């Protein structure tokens, strides 16, 4: 008979209370899995976007909010020795219908980021005409095909092609001439960023060192801007940062509520079982073993809640990822590290919430506890 078994027996004694406590922590974990999972997925898709387009660096404003960049700096960036190409890009999240949002990318027709796109239907847009290309998932959601007309923010566009991109952000998004999007977003003369592809590193120089030097050169040439490696940009762009902050904020509130549920349950359990704890102490159990028993019960509540939350969160993530409002900007997969993090968090919350009741239980005098009614 191990201590773990006694802990499991104890938490099964009050099934309704245990179930409600497990539900409390499961809701928190499910929120964490779904929301943080979604924001991580969003981040992964941004990284894929940069990688599939061959972007090494993104040049953005140095300011915290990374607003817009004057498009005239493009020529100065292109003139730098390490820079092979620098493509301006405007990105905006727009309502296409009352139910469907999508990321809209504005690019020059000859941007190097257009090259990897695979045209499934129609053609790429040309020049600065009022033309748009739809990612295949978005085209399916909207029921549009090449040749159809669509309205974006009050302006009319001809759908000239349907494409498949390397990232869900593209396949669920819209591509249009950069000037058209600048007009729509009232960003004339401004771009969101310049995406830079570097020349190959000279032989004998490491990629890392070469990247560092290229960044320094760009930032020296344009003191108000910063050159961010693609991976870092995927992690830190405004949309990802916003999604991550909302996801963590919401999850932490839900997790806190779950933790309070466990703390309440364990405090009640210790109070109700005061005499039993006195018996254990009278029979020679040390204080740390009493603490271990209570903490095992709290950790068991946390881990059961964590597992239920993982399943619930995975379902919620699937639902979230399939909503037209989320613009197909993430997939529904949960990575093993994310699942492990959620489970570890659930157990840690259980242990933290059980700590005070466990400490109080261990401090009980055996004689006083045996007298407890």
């Amino acid at each position: 008979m191990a201590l773990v078994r006694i802990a499991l027996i104890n938490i099964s004694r009050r099934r309704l209370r245990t179930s409600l406590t497990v539900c409390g922590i499961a809701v928190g974990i499910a929120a964490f899995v779904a929301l943080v999972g979604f924001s991580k997925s969003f981040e992964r898709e941004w990284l894929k976007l940069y990688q599939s387009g061959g972007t090494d660096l993104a040049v953005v404003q140095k300011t915290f909010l990374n607003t817009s960049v004057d498009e005239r700096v493009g020529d100065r960036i292109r003139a730098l020795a390490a820079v092979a190409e620098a493509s301006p890009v405007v990105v905006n999240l727009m309502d296409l219908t009352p139910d469907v949002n999508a990321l809209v990318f504005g690019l020059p027709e000859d941007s190097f980021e257009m090259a990897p796109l695979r045209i499934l239907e129609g053609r790429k847009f040309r020049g600065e005409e009022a033309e748009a290309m739809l990612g295949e998932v978005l085209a399916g959601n909207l029921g549009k095909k090449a040749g159809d007309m669509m309205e974006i923010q009050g302006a009319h566009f001809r759908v000239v092609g349907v494409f498949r991109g390397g990232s869900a952000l593209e396949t669920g998004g819209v591509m249009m001439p950069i000037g058209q999007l600048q007009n729509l977003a009232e960003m004339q003369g401004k771009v969101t960023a310049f995406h830079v592809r570097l020349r190959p590193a000279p032989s004998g120089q490491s990629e890392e060192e070469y990247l560092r030097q290229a960044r320094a050169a760009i930032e020296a040439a344009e003191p108000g801007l910063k050159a961010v490696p693609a991976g870092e940009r995927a992690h830190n762009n405004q949309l990802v940062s916003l999604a991550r902050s909302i996801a963590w904020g919401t999850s932490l509130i839900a997790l806190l509520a779950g933790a309070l549920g466990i703390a309440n349950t364990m405090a009640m359990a210790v109070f109700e079982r005061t005499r039993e704890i006195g018996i254990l102490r009278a029979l020679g159990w040390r204080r740390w073993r009493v603490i271990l028993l209570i903490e095992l019960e709290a950790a068991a509540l946390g881990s059961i809640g964590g597992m239920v939350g993982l399943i619930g969160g995975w379902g919620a993530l699937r639902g979230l990822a399939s909503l037209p409002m989320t613009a197909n900007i993430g997939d529904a997969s949960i990575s093993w590290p994310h699942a492990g993090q959620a489970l570890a968090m659930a157990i840690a919350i259980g242990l933290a919430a059980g700590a005070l009741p466990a400490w109080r239980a261990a401090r009980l005098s055996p004689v006083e506890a045996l007298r407890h009614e």
Partner: protein
Amino acid sequence: MSDEPILRVQNLTKKYDEGRIQALRGVDLQIPQGEFLTISGPSGSGKSTLLQLLGGLDEPSSGEVFYRGANLAGAFDLDAYRSRRVGFIFQAFHLLPALRVPDNVQIPMLEGPLSARERSRRAEALLEEVGMTHRTRQYPNQLSAGERQRVAIARSLANDPEILLGDEPTGNLDSENSARIMALLSGIQSRRSLTIVLVTHEAEVARMGHRNVHMLDGRVVG
């Protein structure tokens, strides 16, 4: 063998409620190894308090408790003393309601070095010693009062103690079950050469020990 008694108390006092209640007023007592001692007295005479101090469940306000000549207050880890040297039985049995009979018997063993298999074997042997092998699937609430006390006795022997302390162990039993439990304790005492200290307010039970001390108002009076 040393002449030092297994338990000795010297000028023992115990006060509660900031001294307003004085449960023990200078008790001196020696208990030789292997003795079956009964302590009798009316309610409030201090006999249960004395037992708690002998068992290391509580600490005296003044005076000393010696186990084999060593002062419990300084020389001992009281948890280890309760776990290894002493077994307790209570009037209210104090079995854990969520655990089956053998699991209850194994509870004190969790403080020891035994493996799960050894614990299980020992619990089985102890239940056989108290005549409870036929009730191993039951929970405490499925047992009669006499059966519960037998299980509690088996549990008190879990770590092979030298001293068995009983606080009114027949207090919740009818006369027939009382007699059976006392016979069981006598048998265990003689087989194991245990030192038994048993608190009771029943004159018949008090007479069944090797020696009886009587307490009144926190003092040993006879």
